[in-house]
């Protein structure tokens, strides 16, 4: 196995594109190193992107934030501006692993690991985040929901890297939140996850909403019907009930070691509802 730590994105892309065997990108390594140690993967090339300056910083851009692919969860949690604008996204990232893991784990890595249960992804999808993909053909922006193709698989082509994530400017009256269900209280993986981002007008009426569900399908689900159940309402009980029902209906879970399909469907609705209430309260705070 060859290890490379280039200092530019172009060099990283060239290394990855030039490798005929299995090539892997190393950011925090909290998934990759575990896979290496357990013998799950045997890459011919590992490209460490942490020495590339633009992967290591959080920058304000067009009123939003661009988060480098090697920025750790702990760094996001300590960024006051980011935390104030996107509390749901930051909370979701901070749920990954332990305090020690937080010092390494990255949101971009969480996205590229393409686990259906990835904690940060439903929050990013709800927030309308995009990923900047760089590759041999240049650079492009992709909605985060289009990055994962299935469990453990991404839509990225040979030589392509997620260089950064972009969270747009937080609108007036907007709030986001993420909740997950785990059997324990920490150090666990989502059995169901729900991310909600919504916008309220001056009367407390929802004008825009995005609802994303994790761990209830092969990829994170953008539940449009669930979001539609909120738009035009003041998130009264009837709207929240309709949201829960639509979220449960949108879920396509399986029975596995972490829970039954029936359990996940029910809890997807419960969590969507609870998450929407937190997002609403945050939006009201923002509107005030």
């Amino acid at each position: 196995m060859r290890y490379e730590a280039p200092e530019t994105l172009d060099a990283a892309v060239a290394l990855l594109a030039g490798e005929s065997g299995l090539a892997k990108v190393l950011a925090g390594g909290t998934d990759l190193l575990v896979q290496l140690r357990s013998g799950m993967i045997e890459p011919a090339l590992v490209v460490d992107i942490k020495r590339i300056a633009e992967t290591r910083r959080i920058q304000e851009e067009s009123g939003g934030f661009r988060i480098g692919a090697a920025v750790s969860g702990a760094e996001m949690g300590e960024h006051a501006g980011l935390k104030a604008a996107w509390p749901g996204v930051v909370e979701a990232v901070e749920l990954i692993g332990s305090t020690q893991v937080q010092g390494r784990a990255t949101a971009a890595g969480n996205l590229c690991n393409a686990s259906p249960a990835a904690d940060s992804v439903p929050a990013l999808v709800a927030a309308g985040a995009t990923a900047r993909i760089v590759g041999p053909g240049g650079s492009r922006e992709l909605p985060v929901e289009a990055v994962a193709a299935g469990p453990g698989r991404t839509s990225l082509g040979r030589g392509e890297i997620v260089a950064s994530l972009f969270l747009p400017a937080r609108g007036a009256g907007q709030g986001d939140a993420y909740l997950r269900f785990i059997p324990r209280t920490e150090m666990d993986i989502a059995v169901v996850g729900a991310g909600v981002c919504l916008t309220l007008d001056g009367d407390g009426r929802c004008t825009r909403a995005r609802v994303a569900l994790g761990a209830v399908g092969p990829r994170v689900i953008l539940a449009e019907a669930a979001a539609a159940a909120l738009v035009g309402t003041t998130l009264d009980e009837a709207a929240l009930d309709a949201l829960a029902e639509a979220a449960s209906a949108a879920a396509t879970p399986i029975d596995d070691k972490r829970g039954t399909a029936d359990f996940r469907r029910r809890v997807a609705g419960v969590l969507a509802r609870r998450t929407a209430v937190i997002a609403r309260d945050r939006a009201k705070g923002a509107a005030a």
Partner: protein
Amino acid sequence: MDQSQTTLPRRFKVVGQRKRRPDGIDKVTGRARFGADMTMPGMLWGLVLRSPHAHARIRSIDSSKAEALPGVKAVVTGADFNGERNDVSINCMAGDKALYDGHAVAAVAATSRQAARQALKLIEVDYEVLPHVTDVDAAMKPGAPVIREDLITAGVEPVPTKPSNVAARHEIGKGDVEKGFAEADLIVEQSFRTEATHQGYIEPHACVASVSPDGSAELWVCTQGHFMVRNVCAALLGLDSAQLRVTASEIGGGFGGKTTVFVEPVALALSRKANRPVKIQMTRSEVFRATGPTASSSIDCKIGLTKDGRITAAQAELRYQGGAFKGAGADFGAMAIFTPYDIENVKAVAWDVVTNRPKLAAYRAPGAPMAAFAAESTLDEAARRLGMDPLELRLKNAAREGTKAAYGPTFPRIGLASCLEAIGNSAHYRTPLGPNQGRGLACGFWFNFGGETCTTINVNKDGTVGLSVGTPDIGGSRASMCAMAAEELGIPYEKVRTVIADTASLGYNDVTDGSRVTFSSGLCTIQAARQAIQRLCQRAALMWGIDAEAVVWEDGHAKPAGPNAGKFEPLSLAEIAAASANTGGPIAGHHEVNAEGAGVSFGVHLCDLEVDRETGSVRVVRYTAAQDAGKAVNPDYVEGQMQGGSAQGIGWALNEGYVYGDDGRLQNAGFLDYRIPVASDLPMIDALIVEEPNPGHPYGVRGVGETSIVPPLAAVGNALRDALGVRLTETPMAPPRVLAALAAAAE
């Protein structure tokens, strides 16, 4: 037992104090050396190839390509196990069949881990995959795949002519249950299932073996019993016990799971073949797939009572599977199940079943927690139907001094009623519950054990004392040994150092199990100290020129027995030791015993929990454990045992369990999906130490290590019933089951 052993109560000076743990600093600073911390010159890395199939015939193994790989120094298979090929041997290295997912089929030793890993891939095993069964009830059904062709059920008449998966039937009982149930006003009958759980020790198995061409061998290993390791490995590999010296490392948890061997004989076989030291360190996945776990069970329980709550009869049928080898511990379950109660008519039938799962290893009160889950849940249901307080019902039927247990003995002084009273008097018992909360009570029993034990005390010339014991310290026992030696000798605790001596330094010691160490190594230490005192008195007599009989030992000093003995200033231990060269040389005390008189231990647990009725999430919010310790030598460690067992039992009740796929493979071989509780999952567990002295120990000590895992399954289940209004009868009582039970009840 001599007379002095029954002189109770006594005033203790050191025993009963919360003394600082002698191994504490090394453990918190990382200096302590565990199984994986040993290296030797020229050492090779050993890795084990494991079956990916639950059940398969091994047609052939071709290791020629692996052996040809640079760096590979040895490959071993079952053929290299040239001693006894018993169940333990076959579990360590398969014979003609792989019996479970993870079963060892070959092993390599190479100069690097990478080379060893590569070599494993080059070993070609030709498997004929066979039908498998992993569930205990399925394995007992007619037509189930028979996994051991030579297994004929023991304990049934007439003796079966065909093999089956049922290894044995056991029956425990007394009185006439038919008559007892006829006298009952209420009969409660329920069935329960518990999934297998793993001991979950944090330190994976690890050892370094070095076999010399002259036949002598050294083994460094994390184990609960290095004498057991020596004897078993010697037998499996055809070595002389005297030639194999085994040293126990520090141990990062065992809970019963390190009372047998797994990689130790493999490392020795590799070392013998390679003529180099070999280290094997299991991965967590290997630990889950091929070591431990406990039995899974399926139990029917029936209890009859009069209107006023007197139990007239109790009956149970217990079916346990313990993997592909006989000995699932259902007999222990049958012996323990109704033992907390004084019942005239009892019948418990136990079925020992084999399946395609890893061979069971002991886990803290093996066989008892699942039995208590059945009995204590059924009793809780009875209390509800009678409208009786569950504590009152238990107190009314509690076993006491003089009660004859169904498994044989008539109890001397025991502490169950005292534990029930301690819980009844606790603030916890009287605190009102909040919304969505429930409270559950359960009792538990464990036998405890004595066993073969051997200790030596050496008095040093500076007045300090070295104590050698042969029982690995898994729960702070070195501190307790120091305390008991100091107590007897009359010297400060800090003047005694206790070490776990290797197998060449002491006679045979049984493993650290059965909650036996503080009891039996303690008893042995006290007797060795008394022998040392006798010799100290003899030396003082020599120094004074009087008869040894005229010298007594008081407060760490030799003194003339009375005015007729002569007038001499008392001599301290240090003064006698300093002069020992002139009075006959070094001073020591020794004792060996097969200890009888281990006192049984009872416990009572009280659990409050809160349920999220929308997600099925359960949170234990308050937990109190009361247990009879006889005499708590170090209350900190007694409380630690009570809290640790409670935590493990709560994990077993709520989230822990082996998950097998339809392919017979273990799906959750890691701590992510095998969920032991983390610190934030649990409240502080309140420990109430009850002390009803054990008449079989000089200080009244009872073992405390195991009883604490017996009540939690039922205590949690009963609390869940209280909170939900519906009873769960299968562990783990995880959120999907809670939600499904609520949904079923709502329909």
